[in-house]
């Protein structure tokens, strides 16, 4: 187990290193560097050179990379070009806001999706199952920006129950104004719920058709015991990997949802940083995303072992 963890953790470090090199190279080929972006087109070559020298852009790429990775290891991610502040100060609060949104969406959607999925799968082809299937099909079909806009139309323009945008004053936590969190969370929840529910239902149906479930039914075990001891553990295996893969997908959804509601998180920051070529911020965000992705995959693999003794440790 220790060996397994050690190998996986060192692989994560390696992945992060590769991601940091790739992002550095990508931002290297981005047309027009940050200095050009910051000063605009009509600028004297002298002031452009001066800004480049100030940000160290006049040095060769590999020197800048090792410089960056050296200070990053000491916790210093450099200064943002656009905001003229340390990256940590910009990214920190935004990350906090996004994590709140993600945690709420996750805590709501995962249990409800799994319960509904098992419920519908066990009652395959019943009225309830067909209804749940239709709702979830509509759910996976609606893009996040459509769901978000529809929620705004219904709850903000018609019913006037909730604010139409989630703008926050800098330095305040979204938890102090929970009303602005409701619509973004609902939007994030919608697609994730539908997707997970369909996945769980399909897995439950597959497991229901196996010989061991048929045996369990024929030998007269109570249905409750079959569902909890035979069906759920086996049906959850593929679902867990889907949840892990979906964390990556949710980060994409975050870009859209934060944009719809003007919510100050890392998704909206990412969009702005790409447009303004803010390399230090982009580097930090890419590392955060890669790390989240690697960590969620590791967690998924570990929970595999918990649910299925056959693949414990040996892999």
């Amino acid at each position, binding site marked *: 187990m220790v060996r397994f963890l050690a190998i996986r953790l060192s692989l994560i470090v390696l*992945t992060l290193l*590769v991601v940091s090199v790739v992002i550095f190279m*990508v931002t290297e*080929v*981005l*047309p*027009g560097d940050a200095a050009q972006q910051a000063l605009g087109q009509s600028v004297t070559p002298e002031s452009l050179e001066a800004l480049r020298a100030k940000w160290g852009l006049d040095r060769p790429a590999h020197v800048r990379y090792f410089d960056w990775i050296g200070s990053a290891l000491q916790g210093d991610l450099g200064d943002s070009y656009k905001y003229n502040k340390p990256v940590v100060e910009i990214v920190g609060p935004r990350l906090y806001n996004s994590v709140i949104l993600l945690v709420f969406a996750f805590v709501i959607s995962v249990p409800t999706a799994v319960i509904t999925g098992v419920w519908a799968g066990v009652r395959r082809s019943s009225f309830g199952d067909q209804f749940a299937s239709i709702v979830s*099909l*509509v759910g*996976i*079909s*609606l*893009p*996040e*920006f*459509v769901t978000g*806009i*529809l929620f*705004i*139309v219904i709850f*903000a*323009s*018609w019913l006037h129950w909730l604010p*139409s945008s989630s703008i926050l004053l800098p330095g305040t936590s979204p938890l102090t104004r929970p009303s602005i969190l409701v619509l973004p969370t609902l939007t994030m929840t919608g697609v994730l719920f539908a997707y997970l529910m369909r996945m769980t239902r399909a897995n439950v149906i597959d497991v229901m058709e196996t010989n061991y479930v048929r045996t369990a039914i024929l030998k007269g075990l109570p249905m409750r015991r079959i569902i909890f001891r035979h069906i759920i553990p086996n049906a959850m295996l593929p679902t867990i990997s889907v949840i892990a893969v979906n964390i*990556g*997908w949710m*980060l*994409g*959804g975050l*870009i*859209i949802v934060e*944009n*719809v509601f003007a919510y100050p998180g890392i998704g909206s920051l*990412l*969009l702005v940083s*790409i*447009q303004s070529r803010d390399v230090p911020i982009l580097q930090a965000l890419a590392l955060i*995303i*890669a790390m989240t*992705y690697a960590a969620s995959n590791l967690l998924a693999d570990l929970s595999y072992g918990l649910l299925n003794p056959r693949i414990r440790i040996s892999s």
Partner: protein
Amino acid sequence: MTGYSITRTGWTAIFRTGGSGIVDIMRTVRTLFMLALRTPAGRIGLPIVLIHLILALFGTWLAPYSPTAFVGPQLDAPSWQFLMGTDVFGRDILSRVMSGAGSIIGISAAGALLGIALGTIVGMGSGYKGGKTDEVVMRIMDGLMSFPSLLMALLVLTIFASSDIGRRLPQEGWVILTIGVVFMPPISRVMRSTTLALKTQEFVQSARMRGEPSPYIIFREILPNTWSVLAVELSVRLSYAILLASSLGFLGLGVQPPSPDWGLMISESRRYIVTAPWVALAPAFAVSSLIIGVNLLTDGIRQARRLPKKGTYQ
């Protein structure tokens, strides 16, 4: 798989017998549609998709007004004259939605097809070659897949489309290329496993024994046996492509104004959403119904493939 000869080199064989390939594809597509019509999901999905296809082909022509002309008062509520209301410039929303169908469907279909083509070439080549090459190619594909697809699309679009050379290709072209690149890794995985399964079959083995060149075996022996896998993959990818293309439009990176684009129309409506919600509703309904239709059709095809075969369907 008839009419081959040992002396023919693989590539000329593909071009010379290309016609029968297209007949094969058409036959597969028709069979899948017929199959889909046997399920409730397919019976609902197919008409929805057909309506959208008609709009895509004739929408501009059927629309009551020009999509870019200022024909009425600004932000006018739906009325008999303007069935879906007007936008902030006084343009007819119904006409814009109808004319916008062509670009979103064209871009998504072209992007999905490009992704299928790239993924097929990479996946089949890698699976057929096997060994170290396969290992390396698949690890690269895994790496590409570990980025959220929207993030990857954003990076590809901003890196290439905004460069000096990039501006020579219209933005629509870049969105198509982006979708193709983002879709390549997952499709290559599917095609690789299909190829691995077919590689060991007798007809492939005997083609090898005859000494046929690899491109011939890949494209003339293996590829024709994957049409149904590809058709299902295409219909799945199509709904993702519409999602991705409309999301990029919403972020302002797709079709540029004043061209009518559903994602962009929804994004522009954001500012007047409280006072004029109808500006958002028509394009939101259009894009949702399109994706729902495609998903229903895909579901129908998938269910039907699991049904027992009967009648003349194959």
